[in-house]
């Protein structure tokens, strides 16, 4: 019967929909309005409708594209690195973990610390005069690299993010690896398959869905990075470490160009939506 089902569905979907509407409904509408208006902090209650002007401002803003480029490069690079390291660690350390489970606990500590705090910790660690890393490098190798100088700063923030979030990928891959049926492995070793081949031909393909998911989540998180980059280097010399989130934040709060910030956020949301739908479709195809 249709009617009870419809009522049921309404009750099932109700909580989520109502919750979202209640908390985000008004803000979303207002943000959309601001996105198409000329607003500043002084004119919050009287935005002047300006059509697509904000979108034009955003898309012609070199800083926007610089931020987009940064976020893309950053997201891709950190996701790739985290997945490679995470996978390597999970697979290689799996036998060890089987006997000593506490190893996992030690390795996931970095991702539990607040990213904002992590950024501050790195600021201390890399400080030329108060930080241990430059101290030891200088004393043992006579080498005083400038971690946060313009040439190295991108590598440094990538490294900081990677080191903090590799545990996330590691955890995902570890469980995927551990859930591969043991009989598969036994069958392979009976056949005399060497471990490397076992990995490449059997285990990795079975873990592919997890690889995609891990890459995807880490890419999104890397793309929208804010906390640890901002607390570590701020917007960067010449704006070189401005991510999309930092760009939106600064446009919104520092420059007070509210409409422009909203437009940028709308663009961001739409592109992420499209990307996710595409990835979803690819994943569904890969699953079969």
């Amino acid at each position: 019967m249709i009617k009870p089902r419809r009522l049921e569905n309404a009750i099932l979907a109700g909580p989520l929909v109502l919750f979202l509407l209640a908390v985000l409904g008004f803000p979303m509408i207002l943000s959309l309005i601001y996105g198409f208006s000329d607003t500043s902090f002084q004119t919050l209650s009287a935005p002047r409708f300006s059509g697509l002007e904000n979108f034009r401002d955003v898309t012609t803003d070199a800083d926007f594209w610089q931020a987009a480029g940064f976020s893309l490069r950053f997201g891709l690079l950190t996701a790739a690195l985290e997945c490679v390291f995470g996978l390597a660690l999970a697979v290689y350390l799996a036998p060890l973990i089987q006997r000593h489970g506490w190893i996992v606990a030690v390795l996931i500590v970095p991702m539990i610390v607040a990213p904002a705090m992590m950024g501050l910790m790195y600021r201390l660690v890399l400080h030329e005069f108060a930080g241990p890393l430059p101290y030891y490098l200088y004393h043992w190798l006579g080498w005083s690299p400038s971690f946060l100088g313009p040439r190295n700063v991108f590598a440094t923030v990538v490294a900081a993010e990677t080191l903090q979030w590799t545990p996330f990928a590691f955890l995902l891959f570890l469980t995927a690896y551990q859930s591969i049926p043991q009989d598969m492995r036994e069958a392979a070793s009976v056949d005399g398959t060497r471990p490397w081949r076992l990995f490449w031909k059997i285990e990795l393909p079975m873990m592919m869905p997890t690889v995609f998911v891990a890459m995807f989540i880490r890419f999104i998180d890397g793309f929208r990075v804010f906390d640890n980059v901002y607390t570590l280097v701020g917007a960067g010399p010449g704006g070189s470490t401005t991510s999309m989130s930092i760009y939106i934040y600064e446009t919104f709060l520092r420059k007070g160009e509210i409409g422009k910030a909203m437009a940028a956020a709308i663009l961001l949301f739409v592109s992420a939506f499209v990307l996710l739908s595409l990835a979803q479709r690819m994943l569904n195809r890969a699953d079969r």
Partner: protein
Amino acid sequence: MSYMTLLRGGVAGLALLAAASVAQAEVTVLGWPGGPEETALRAVTDIYNAKPDLAAENKVDLLFTSRDGFFDKLQVDLAAGSTAFDVNLIATYSIGKYAPFMEPITLSDEAGRVFGDTVLKTMQFDGQQYGVPTDLSLHFLYFRKDLTDALMADDAAKAKYAEISEKHLGKKMEPKAPEDWMWEDFVANALYFTQSINPDSPTRYGTVIQAKNLLFNMMVFHSWPRSYGANWTDDAGNITVDSEAFRTALKMAKMLFELGATPPDSTSYEYAEANAAYSSGQVAAMVQWNAAAADLTKAQAATVSTAPPAGPDGKFTHIHGLGLGLNKAAKNKEGATAFLTWLSTEEAALAYARAGGAPGLAGETVAKLAAERPDLVQVGDYASNYGFVMNGATSQNALSVYEAQAKEFTGYWAGTQDLDTAMKNIAASMTELLK
């Protein structure tokens, strides 16, 4: 937008309800957290609250939030008409931005005598007084007297100094007392005290230029171009940032980056890192906020502070003030105004200074503190003699101008763009922002 009016009405209604139900209203003051400003504010508040003729509902309650993101939060709070505080902190460079949400105030009769005109101006916008100036910020040149004395007494060292200055600045120079420095002497000194240029240098770096992409770092830099005659606009309002004066100062600073006279990471340094570098003893001299005096002298006892070096146009230091002003949406305007008026009296100013604050006080007043706070005499002196505010630095978009400059100029110093590109960008930004 009627929706907004509805909301505002709602907020006002709630506020009225809240006010009616509360037995004692108070004056809530939002101050600058975590520094001597906080300690001093607490001290004067205690004095004020102890006054016998003060009504209970006008007692002052202090509120301190986070230093990180303080101004961002303040912006959101003020724009949304927050009633969480009656009085809030303002700064010279942001009065223009917050003025629409604040109300001008009248100071006490003594205020002119106590603070002097230059200092009172730091709290003015559009001809109106928006706040009481509680703390004055300007820059000192901090240097290691032991190092400069040793240099001036040693002939072999002087010869080396001349050699280095000839190589990089084109003329043989002699070390001078830092009080008499021109910016060229500053550069020459920095080059001499850099180990990578002069292996005999007792310090690793001659100076440290805080060059993080941060608006405050531009304020530190500005005395340099200003002493060559630079300004943001001329009197007619034309943008004059792309000038010989600005370029000269920028290029001289760039030289220090290129030759390694400032730590390579200094493009990510702000106040804390620069001070840590100087405190470690590996830096010979630097220009820094006056607030650092106590910390730096504690870390390096041989530190002396003086005014920044001079240029062809004279000796200058950027000044700005922190102060307290009246929130337009304040619940207890009467009580708040009473407190602010009292703050501008001599009694309050002296108490504030004695408790650790750093107000800019006029000669007569500050003389009363000469024994306890000699550094304030220095601050007052420099403020009136060398203090300057760039044209347009109190306008509504002043903060954005500083930010745009920070982005372009630190980009130039860090090597991500050349000077012409930086100048083109900043001139365009400033034209847009200051029109």
